[in-house]
């Protein structure tokens, strides 16, 4: 047993180390099929297996390299999914299950718990309304819809499953959730004063109404200022009237409605420093009420009861849903990612057979990206580790950035401790630290060295800081010069002298400007640069700003239906499916510039005098030669799959050729691929939902497609993406877009898992508990402050902050040559990581006109180039890149050539008979008929006879013949229709006939034959019998199971073509037959065919 844990900081050659480790094991006798290796993504898995293979080849282990595919290498989910499938019968589950992806999982869960949740929610409708969790399952945020409580149920059930919490544990946790919430945030219950408050509000409003009415009275004698004040109050009154109506429906009035009043208590009058909440008049009229409500709201017993009831409803329903969901999946044969892990864990723990098999089958467990392991996964790895001899785990706790998926970085640290101590079930292991960077130049490393030891103080310095590998250093000469840069925008100040940050719209423009400057260096191309941002929205904005400067960027391309090629395919599909889609037809005319009516369609249509005329116009458009292929495609439609249809449309509308003369052909080719992928996804999803997969449904799905193609990997393109998605990648120059503020969210609501007080990595799931705190009164400061101070909230905030630190580490270690910080003189996200202060001192800082980046706690600043960038895109400074070579075509302009379309293969039996092929002689009786008029099973009788006559009968003795006949009638189940006797008799008759007609002939049965005809079509077939006469002549015989009454006519009509083909084929093979016979065993006759 060995256990090696490799601590691999970013860029330290992790994959190289791992593959060579594996190769060394293989050299030492490990069979590839004895390896299990897990990685985090599919791509990484494919790469790992390819690297292993190539490393084995390099090391001369060719035999083993060939067998690399027999290793079990994949993502954690796929590996455990495969194990679970393989051992499905041990687990007592179905061996054929469909894995739900995340989207499908959500809808499956909703469907599964609909009944349970419906029943539980019915009596609680008012409660759900008061707590505002009665929204739809998929809320439309733009209308301010809030999600349904069932979403909380799903999230909770999911965490319960990933943490192996039982329904019972969930139910128990409900009481504790409530207790903790109450203790932390709620006073002793008092009196329910909603009634009096409402009346107080009504009174105040009545007063205001009367007062404001006075403002309209010209004789009121009020001062102008007073009139104005009253008028502005009048404007706001309706809002409060509506609020009053809401609050009067007390049984459904949301608790948060009260905070519309309590806000006043936080405004000017209530001592807050904000302005008025409504207007002075209103605030004044309501301040007393506001203060009272603020004081008394939390003590309201009904509110407290609602919170308790909601917690209990959500947690108990989640508990119930565990069963309902499991049953649902079981019945439908579905499985989700969590099931794969949990199922595999239970299997490993419960089945002795499985444990035995794994123990005997595998010898090396390699785990890559170990830091991203979730507790269940760790539990799984631990189970496996006890069965598998050798373990190599590789990871970097500094790069754990998937907490939101359940990964827990403390697990890796815990494991390291255990292995070092050597006193747990894991035994003692070897911890190796990779010390060298194979990726980055010194400048990039210097920044990392300067800041991250401060951000990860709990880690030993050597696990944070890398030095450039001497061998890598040697390669730098060929690389562009490295360095650090910091970017900022021109300094703008607020009136109060504080620096005014650029707007969200300006920042991407500035980044694009900086990149344009980088590209001014002739040695730098777009493909050398990456921009790392926090959110997908930022990525989209940066990509757009780059596009505006003519700089190609990766990311999500133009949505398929907003791209010309996508529109054309969509319109083509619509017309192909239904010719009456005149809108789609018109669109095609508009989009295809070689259509006869292109550019003129509106005039043509409007000029038509009446409906008939218009019909004629449309008919003409449809007949335009440009649509020839599309018209032809209509006939194939019913037989095509969605993917084939899209492929066919792309071709019918000649898109690959058209695209060449358009802008961005590479991107457009990606659109085409995305369209096909959409068709494939649609089919996949429809199947998972047991919905039909038809072209009509494809059309509907396509109409709903909102995404664009994935432009990753396009050459000469700036990579733009989130820091998360940059993990595992490296680039020459990396721009890191720094957040202007370190956002810290208070985490006081939702479901969450409380870890065990003391983590035991050997039992990572032990002692965990679930909690749910309802999102009630999210803006009510008195409650939120108290909840924010709880241990739970603080822990959740801390976890988030640590994760943010690791994310920065990932971002700042991606560069090979240059790291570029795009911020405004400092990096607040980093500051927040080293200090808890409200206004922490800057960890890094730079000036617009400086030439270095200062680092707190370090005397020497880091030399850096500082650029100040423009926040408005300049006119006429587009980056120019050369047209793609892929635009070149080998096709001459003009109409399409026509391919012959002749099938490469043909069957002799499919060659039509024609009188010209020859004539048919009269039948010669050779024995009795086997069946009368074709009995019930004459086809099978025919097969049996065929089979019998294929035997080397002449060489068999009577006994053998009889037994063979018996066996064949049984096998073909024709004992009653024919019987062995009859079959034997038919054989005898045939032999006798041969003996008489062709004495001394050698009989060759079932002979393979091939032939290439004059059209180069090939035939492969079997000839029933060839007779080789003593004089060398060849006779071709075909047995036909024809039971009918007109043998001559039948042969003439059906078989002449086939016989002629065989004869010609035989001739080509140098065995031209001199005679051709058709044997009709069912009739006991032989006919001769005289070929022309």
């Amino acid at each position: 047993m060995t256990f090696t844990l490799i601590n691999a900081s970013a860029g330290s050659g992790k994959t190289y180390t791992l593959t060579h480790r594996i190769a060394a094991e293989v050299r030492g006798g490990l069979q590839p099929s004895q390896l299990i290796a897990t990685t985090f993504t599919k791509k990484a898995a494919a790469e790992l297996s390819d690297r292993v293979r190539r490393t084995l080849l390099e090391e001369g282990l060719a035999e083993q390299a060939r067998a690399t595919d027999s290793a079990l290498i994949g993502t954690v989910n796929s590996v455990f999914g495969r194990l679970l499938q393989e051992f499905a019968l041990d687990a007592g589950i179905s061996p054929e299950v469909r894995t739900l992806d995340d989207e499908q999982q959500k809808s499956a869960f909703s469907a599964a718990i609909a009944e349970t949740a419906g029943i539980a929610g019915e009596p609680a409708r008012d409660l759900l309304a008061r707590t505002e969790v009665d929204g739809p399952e998929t809320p439309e945020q733009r209308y301010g819809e809030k999600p349904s409580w069932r979403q909380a149920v799903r999230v909770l059930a999911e965490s319960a499953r990933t943490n192996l919490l039982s329904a019972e544990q969930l139910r128990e946790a409900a009481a504790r959730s409530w207790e903790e919430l109450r203790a932390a945030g709620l006073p002793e219950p008092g009196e329910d004063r909603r009634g009096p408050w409402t009346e107080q509000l009504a009174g105040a409003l009545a007063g205001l109404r009367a007062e404001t009415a006075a403002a309209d009275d010209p004789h009121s004698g009020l001062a102008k200022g007073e009139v104005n004040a009253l008028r502005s109050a009048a404007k706001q009154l309706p809002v409060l009237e509506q609020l009053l109506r809401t609050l009067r429906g007390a049984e459904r009035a949301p608790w948060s409605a009260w905070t519309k009043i309590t806000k006043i208590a936080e405004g000017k009058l209530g001592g807050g420093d904000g302005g008025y909440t409504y207007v002075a008049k209103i605030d004044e009229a309501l301040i007393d009420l506001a203060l009272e409500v603020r004081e008394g709201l939390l003590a309201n017993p009904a509110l407290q009861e609602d919170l308790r009831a909601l917690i209990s409803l959500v947690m108990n329903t989640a508990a119930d849903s565990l069963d309902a969901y499991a049953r649902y999946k079981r019945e439908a044969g579905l499985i989700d990612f969590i099931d794969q892990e949990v199922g595999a864990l239970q299997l490993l723990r419960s089945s002795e057979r499985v444990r035995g098999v794994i123990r005997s089958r595998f010898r090396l467990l390699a785990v890559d990206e170990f830091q991203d392991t979730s507790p269940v996964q760790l539990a799984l790895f631990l189970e496996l580790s006890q069965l598998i001899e050798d373990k190599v785990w590789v990871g970097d706790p500094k790069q754990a950035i998937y907490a939101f998926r359940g990964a827990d970085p403390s697990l890796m640290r815990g494991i390291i401790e255990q292995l070092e101590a050597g006193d747990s079930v894991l035994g003692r292991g070897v911890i190796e630290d990779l010390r060298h960077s194979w990726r980055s130049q010194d400048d990039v490393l210097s920044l990392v060295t300067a800041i991250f030891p401060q951000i990860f103080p709990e880690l030993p310095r050597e696990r944070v800081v890398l030095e450039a590998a001497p061998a890598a250093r040697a390669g730098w000469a060929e690389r562009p010069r490295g360095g650090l840069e910091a970017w900022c925008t021109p300094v703008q100040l607020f009136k109060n002298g504080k620096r005014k940050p650029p707007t969200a719209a300006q920042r991407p423009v500035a980044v694009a400007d900086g990149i344009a400057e980088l590209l001014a260096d002739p040695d730098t191309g777009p493909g050398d640069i990456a921009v790392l941002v926090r959110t997908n929205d930022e990525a989209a904005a940066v990509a757009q700003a780059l596009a505006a400067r003519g700089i190609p960027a990766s990311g999500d391309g133009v949505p398929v239906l907003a791209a010309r090629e996508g529109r054309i395919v969509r319109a083509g599909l619509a017309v192909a499916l239904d010719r009456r889609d005149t809108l789609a037809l018109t669109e095609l005319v508009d989009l295809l510039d070689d259509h006869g009516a292109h550019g003129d369609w509106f005039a043509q249509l409007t000029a038509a005098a009446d409906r008939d005329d218009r019909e004629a116009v449309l008919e003409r458009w449809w007949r335009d030669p440009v649509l020839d292929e599309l018209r032809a495609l209509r006939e194939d439609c019913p037989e095509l799959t969605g993917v084939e249809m899209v492929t066919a449309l792309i071709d019918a509308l000649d898109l690959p050729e058209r695209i060449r003369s358009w802008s961005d052909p590479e991107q457009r080719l990606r659109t085409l691929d995305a369209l096909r992928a959409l068709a494939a996804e649609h089919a996949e999803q429809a199947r998972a939902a047991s919905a039909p997969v038809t072209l009509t449904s494809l059309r509907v799905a396509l109409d709903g497609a909102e995404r664009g193609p994935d432009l990753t990997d396009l050459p000469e393109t700036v990579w733009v993406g989130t820091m998360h998605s940059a993990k595992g990648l490296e680039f020459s120059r990396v721009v890191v877009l720094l957040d202007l503020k370190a956002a810290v969210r208070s985490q006081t609501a939702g479901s969450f898992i409380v870890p065990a007080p003391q983590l035991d990595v050997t039992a990572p799931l032990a002692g965990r508990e679930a909690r749910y705190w309802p999102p009630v009164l999210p803006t009510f400061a008195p409650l939120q402050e108290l909840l924010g101070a709880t241990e739970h909230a603080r822990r959740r905030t801390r976890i988030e902050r640590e994760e943010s630190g690791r994310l920065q580490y990932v971002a700042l270690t991606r560069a090979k040559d240059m790291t570029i910080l795009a911020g405004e003189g400092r990096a607040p996200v980093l500051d927040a990581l080293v200090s808890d202060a409200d206004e922490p001192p800057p960890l890094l800082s730079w000036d617009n006109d400086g030439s270095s980046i200062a680092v707190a706690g370090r005397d020497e600043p880091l030399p850096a180039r500082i650029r100040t960038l423009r926040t408005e895109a300049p006119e006429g400074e587009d980056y120019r890149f050369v047209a793609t070579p892929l635009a070149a075509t080998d096709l001459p302009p003009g109409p399409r050539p026509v391919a012959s379309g002749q099938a490469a293969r043909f069957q002799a039996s499919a060659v039509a008979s024609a009188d010209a092929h020859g004539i048919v002689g009269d039948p010669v009786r050779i024995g009795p008929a086997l069946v009368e008029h074709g009995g019930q099973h004459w086809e099978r009788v025919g097969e049996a006879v065929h089979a019998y006559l294929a035997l080397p009968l002449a060489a068999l003795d009577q006994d053998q013949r009889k037994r063979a006949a018996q066996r064949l009638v049984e096998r073909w189940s024709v004992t009653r229709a024919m019987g062995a006797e009859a079959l034997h008799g038919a054989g005898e008759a045939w032999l006798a006939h041969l003996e008489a007609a062709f004495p001394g002939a050698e009989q060759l049965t079932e002979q393979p034959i091939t032939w290439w005809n004059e059209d180069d079509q090939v035939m492969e077939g079997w000839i029933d019998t060839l007779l080789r006469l003593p004089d060398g002549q060849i006779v071709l015989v075909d047995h036909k199971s024809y039971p009918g009454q007109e043998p001559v006519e039948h042969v003439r009509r059906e078989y002449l073509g086939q016989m002629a083909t065989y004869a010609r084929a035989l001739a080509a093979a140098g065995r031209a037959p001199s005679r051709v016979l058709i044997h009709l065993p069912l009739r006991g006759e032989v006919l001769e065919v005289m070929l022309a």
Partner: protein
Amino acid sequence: MQIDFGWALDGSSWADAGAGGSTGRLRCGPRGLVALLQTRLGLTRPAVDQAVRIAQYLQLVEPCAADPAFWPARSVALDPWSTARQLLRWRDAAREDGWSLAPDAALPPRLAALAMIEQRARPGALSPGAADDLHEVVEELEQLAAAGTPWPLGITSIALHEEPSALPGRWPALLGLLAGQGVELTGPAPASEHRPALEVVQCRDEWTAADVAARFLAAGGTEPLTLLAAADTDVLDRALHRRGLPATGHVAASTDRAAHQVVGLFLDAVTAPVDVHQLAALLDLRLLPGPDADAAPRGLFPARVRHALLGALTREPGIGGPAWRAALAAEEGAAEIDALVSTPLRAEDLRPPVIAERLEWLARRLHGLARGQGAVLASVLHVQAVRGVLAMLDPGIPLSRRTLQQIIDECGGSGRSPRAVAEVAPWSVTTGAAQVRADGGTVLWLGPGESAPSAPRWDPGELRALEAAGARPATPEHLASLQVDAALRGLGSAQRVVAVLPGRRLEQDPAPSALLALLEASRGRDESDRLAPQDLLSGSTWSLAGRTLAVRTPPRAEIAPPPESPLSIGPAAHLLPERLSFSQASTLISCPHHWVLQYALGIRPAQVAALPTGRPMIGTLVHAVVEQLVHERVDEDLGGVPLTVPAAERVGEVFDALVPQLASELDLPGHSAERGDIRARAVRSVRELFERMAVAGLRITGTESGFSRPLALDLAGGPRTVDVRGSRDLDAVDASGRPAVIDLKWTSSRKGYDDLYDTSEAIQLATYAWSLGVDPPPTVGYYLLKGAEFVAADPALDPRGRAPMDVEDSWRRMVAAITTALDDVAAGTVHVGCREVLEGAGPTYDQQGRAWSGARATARAEGGLVVRAYCGSSEYAQLCGLTGDWR
């Protein structure tokens, strides 16, 4: 006969290109050789569907599973079909490895289970599979050998590609027996040291890869060429046809074709609760092309019936409602479908005979359709196969939907693509590297595309047990190297290999090719030595591996947006309307261009068989609930409904009664929570409607009142009367007899309606008010069903204290706007509505909002009206040029 035998040669062609003709020569793999020997030895039998074998095996497995100690008992109980299928797969694999399946106390659990099942089988209970055939052939030959009786096999010699001892299972034994029968075994030839020259072109998409391959083929050369089509060639084939070259036809089979959907869809549509979406898909299913390219394709039902019922379903996504009944009345043939869906099978009682009976109907229908020819033949066979399997199952035990679905899938066959036609080509084509016979020529290898064989895997204990029982199982490494060696031998026959890799397909990166890695490594190369497609170009010459072709770069196409608004056409009085509905009028005002296209010219999208669902469906349903309640509450004496609120129970009942007709999907399993939410909301909202109306003293007098009133327009070209038509959601009167018109909306957005009302631009309300033709005009308002709120002036309805909408001014402005718009059209000027407003406004939401407000203010100042159109995402927006790809 002479046979060329290799482990990976099944399915390969035996006609060598250009050989003219031959007889007595065969190339085959294990399956082919066994089949040949079966014929020679008289061991043939009818082919059996795998579905039938699974059903048979299931009959054997089930009694075993009654014993809970039976190893897979739990899985059998849970999913009998798949478990039987899995067990059968293992059984066949064990058999393939040469095991006799004889029981033995020392067997590990999996093998023991297989042996136990086998033991129960009477002869014939399980039709033999390929592995059984091998056993039988071996045993027959053994007997012949033992008896010493001659039985000429007609095989002279077999040239082996592998050492017999390298083959698994009973293969060495079989080959030995053949030798004993006098067949001469030769080979294998020693491994060749020859390494073909290698070029690898790494592309990034299929079309570029297809270009490279097609150019290579088009360029022509003198050396013999083999196209190794390892990946799907649909895209390549289009590129080849585009160049007048023959297609390869390596396109995967799929069950996503219409013919394969029929059975499943049909059974879904006739099983309760009926899912109307499935029913619509079944009605819409296209099975055969029409008689010519212009005709509509043919489906299971006559076109008129299909049309009528689909039309009904798109109006009312349920069964038995007014639209459905109207369709039944209109089309005689519809009754048959109605009969099928209104007495559906019960999901919990899917007994085989009951299903089979329904399928009989389908079989008849399919037969009637073009006599079951063409693509329909696949459906006919499918139904037949399913019925065959159903007949084997216990008639008394209901199937689960899942099992039924599995049977349907299993019986469906593969669904060959119409694109899977190889055409006569001047090069040879193979689909597996092992089958390449390049004879020193060039191999053009498209896509890596190899997939590891997925033989079940025995664990070491099982391997030992199998070996002890005399079997010869192969290890995964061994099987892998048999395949890889064969592939390398195939490729090794070439002088040169040119590999073209598409890089990605369907947005997925294909798995890296092991074979290619081996080839590259053997030449000391890796991925970095691959060529990119642009590396093949030099000026106007394209070249690859010695073949060259002239290319040209087409001039850059200039694609410009359509001309700016307004468009000029000739005088177009012929486009003026005779009738206007409210929505037509609104379109006309907002965008004459859109109006001209959609209404004057009738340019419209086709109806799709996509039924309404989600918000629109629920809106219709709740509207209908209100309508029904009004109908049943109207009291002639009162002249309308009483000013009371219907009981919640009654509203709920009406809701429940209407769901199956108007929103039947809510009754499907999995929708109950959603249904509950909607029902509760609807009940509350409808009661609130009645309550507010009562408080406000408004008596509802009618719903859905249709109207048609002539409107005289004073157009520049002379007066013109158009018929304004529509229907009002709710009519009411107040105590003083003044009428009121309320429009119902199911929407989440209140702001828009507030705004329309407050600015007196709610032209829908104005139109309805005008339609009553009374003076003073009625009071008007919206009722937003979803939020249960009014937008109205009466504080009893809406407490927000609004000023009443100026209905007359609104109508005046609307008529003025219509007049201007029609005058312009008649004069040949077509304004392109929102494009005029938005062009140059800037992309952000705020900028656009400002542009709209500006336009509205201007129009209002001139006594006109701007209607903000929400058509930017419609297909019309492409034609007007508002959206479009002008890159």
